[in-house]
């Protein structure tokens, strides 16, 4: 099938009334989630997964992708108007966005954020469409050893950028892998870490862990200090539209933000939050008006907002073409798809073209819907912040219980979820990132399977992972991503050993 046939197929799937409605519900709920403080895209998707239980896989992922994009859009609104980022990827937007709003330029700031997100989202979707099939076709040649190395590299690269401390992030990944080993080993039928508990034979559901770690821990964090000062909300004065000058300054920033976000956040797997930080750093170096950054320069809004959406789109490429999540949010989506019984990966393009292209088409549609939803209706979204914090917390508790219970009809899962909520709180306090746990959990089983299949091919020799070129390349990538912060020490040690000549 050629390109246009694929696209026609995709729009044929996405433009059915049911899927259009779902895309709309997705971006709508997503925007709410983005606006609400504390509930980021990960929590939002985890909480809303139960809604997708009755849906077809295609409809389910259209809904989830809508939520994902919507949350990325919505986060900027509160950054700009309240100086309270809705999620971690819009922290940077506060710097200049809030300053712009203070100067009465909230309208152009919101417009720059929405338009930047739209451009970046469309760009990422376009790249997915153009290179996706090629990447998938290439990945079809992968055997189990390549897959193992790919997952290994994916885990290390993504987590090496996930948190502020490399050790903590990697430790968090291995905890996720350890949780994945709970339950009956599918190849030998031997139970592992089940503590004679029959309900653990199936293993821990990733949703129990995810909702506990993200949603409930957020509740606990807020409960710890309910009397936080309410921040002043700035009014939108004047028009929403950007002036000619704004456009002139924003377009290069959009471009830089989109590209850096796409490659750093998406392809390299650093995630949306890091992407936004990196693009802001880039603006500080490259932007013509760098002295104004931090005091309300429009570039400071345009670039990071483009970057975080481009990163979200880039992460979808990993998920769809390789079956490997490139971010915490896509890890949750992968887990949800596995629950529905769909294994994302290169075979999808061949076996389920209507799924892939339907999703791509709905991503275009969702981006347009978001632009329409966000610009004229921005006043409505801000009103959501009127929901008192205590009610919001109680709602999150109710939805967490509902989501976890409907998955397996198990009360034990509810207790486990509360336990993971407490663990999640301590992880937050200790600055240990929780997202890698989910990545490890979702990939753990797949990795173990790939490893065993590889060793069956090689008759037990581990050399198979380094004698195959693609596998070797991926493993080297993993090693580089973990060790690069320490390379400096090698240089220092070298100089100490061999005197100053090496340094010169």
């Amino acid at each position, binding site marked *: 099938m050629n390109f246009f046939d694929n696209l026609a197929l995709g729009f044929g799937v996405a433009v059915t009334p049911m899927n259009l409605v779902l895309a709309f519900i997705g971006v709508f709920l997503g925007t709410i989630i983005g606006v609400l403080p504390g509930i980021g895209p990960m929590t939002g998707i985890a909480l809303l997964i139960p809604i997708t239980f009755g849906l077809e896989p295609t409809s389910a992922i259209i809904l989830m992708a809508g939520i994902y994009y919507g949350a990325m859009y919505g986060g900027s609104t509160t950054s700009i108007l309240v100086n309270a980022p809705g999620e971690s990827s819009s922290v940077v937007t506060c710097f200049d966005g809030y300053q712009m709003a203070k100067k009465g330029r909230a309208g152009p700031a919101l417009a720059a954020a929405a338009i930047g997100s739209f451009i970046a989202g469309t760009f990422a979707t376009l790249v997915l469409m153009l290179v996706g099939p090629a990447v998938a076709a290439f990945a079809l040649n992968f055997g189990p050893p390549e897959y193992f190395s790919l997952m290994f590299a994916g885990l290390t690269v993504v987590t090496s950028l996930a948190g*502020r401390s490399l050790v903590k992030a990697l430790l968090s990944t291995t905890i996720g892998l350890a949780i994945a080993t709970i339950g009956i080993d599918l190849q*030998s039928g031997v139970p592992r870490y089940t503590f004679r508990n029959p309900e653990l034979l199936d293993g821990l559901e990733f949703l129990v862990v995810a909702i506990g770690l993200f949603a409930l821990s957020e509740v606990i964090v807020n*409960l*710890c200090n309910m009397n936080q000062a309410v921040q002043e909300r700035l009014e939108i004065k004047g028009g929403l539209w950007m002036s000619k000058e704004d456009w002139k300054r924003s377009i290069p920033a959009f471009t830089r933000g989109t590209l850096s976000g796409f490659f750093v956040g998406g392809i390299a797997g650093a995630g949306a939050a890091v992407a936004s930080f990196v693009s802001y750093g880039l603006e500080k170096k490259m932007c013509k008006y760098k002295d104004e950054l931090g005091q309300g320069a429009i570039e400071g809004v345009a670039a990071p907002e483009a970057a975080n959406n481009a990163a979200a789109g880039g992460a979808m490429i990993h998920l769809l073409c390789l079956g490997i999540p490139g971010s915490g949010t896509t890890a949750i989506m992968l887990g949800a798809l596995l629950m529905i019984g769909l294994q994302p990966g290169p075979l999808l393009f061949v076996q389920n073209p209507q799924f892939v292209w339907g999703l791509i088409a709905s991503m275009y549609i969702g981006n347009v819907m978001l632009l329409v939803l966000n610009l004229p209706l921005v006043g409505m979204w801000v009103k959501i912040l009127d929901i008192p914090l*205590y009610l919001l917390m*109680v709602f999150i508790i109710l939805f967490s219980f509902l989501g976890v219970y409907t998955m397996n009809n198990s009360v034990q899962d509810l207790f486990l979820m509360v336990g993971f909520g407490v663990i999640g709180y301590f992880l937050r306090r200790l600055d240990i990132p929780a997202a890698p746990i989910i990545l490890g959990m979702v990939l753990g089983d797949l990795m173990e399977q790939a490893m065993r299949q590889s060793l069956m091919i090689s008759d037990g020799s581990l050399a198979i992972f380094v004698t195959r070129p693609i596998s070797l390349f991926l493993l080297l990538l993993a090693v580089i991503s973990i060790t690069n912060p320490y390379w400096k020490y090698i240089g220092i040690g070298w100089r100490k050993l061999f005197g100053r000549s090496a340094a010169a």
Partner: protein
Amino acid sequence: MSNDVKENRIASVVLLLFSATYFAMAFFTIGQPASKQILGPDAFPKAIGILMIVLSAAYVAQSFRGMSKEDEARAALIGADEKLSSYVDVKTVGIMLGLMLIYAFIFERLGYPISTFLMFMAGVLVLDRRHLVRDAIIGLVISFGLHFAFTFLLRVQLPAGPLSWFGL
């Protein structure tokens, strides 16, 4: 010594113990399969266990010696998460956690709508009781609304509890 450092030290030691337990359990609690395999069910857990021990040992070392300058520079670059304030309203958190456990306990026994309404009202009473009537109405609508939406619209079964006597 600041609280933060102390907490990290305790946590790192706890994680090291946890890793060691996980590793040891891979030897003692995982049975052997009936047929011989190239990679038994205990191989992967053992590998993860070793990794966990190495990493948590590194965490212990870091928390007792302090972070290197390199790591701090890295943290500043990536630093998206702000630190949590160390103030904790232990009473509120404790009561709410207790309520959640009770909610889980009565979830099936009293059924979804009733237990959810009770949880909602209890939460409101603990956190902010200035708008009781308004919140009671919201609670009723939410608990029964969600129940009917899930059972009749989404066709996802929720426990009806005593309400099943009325055929709901």
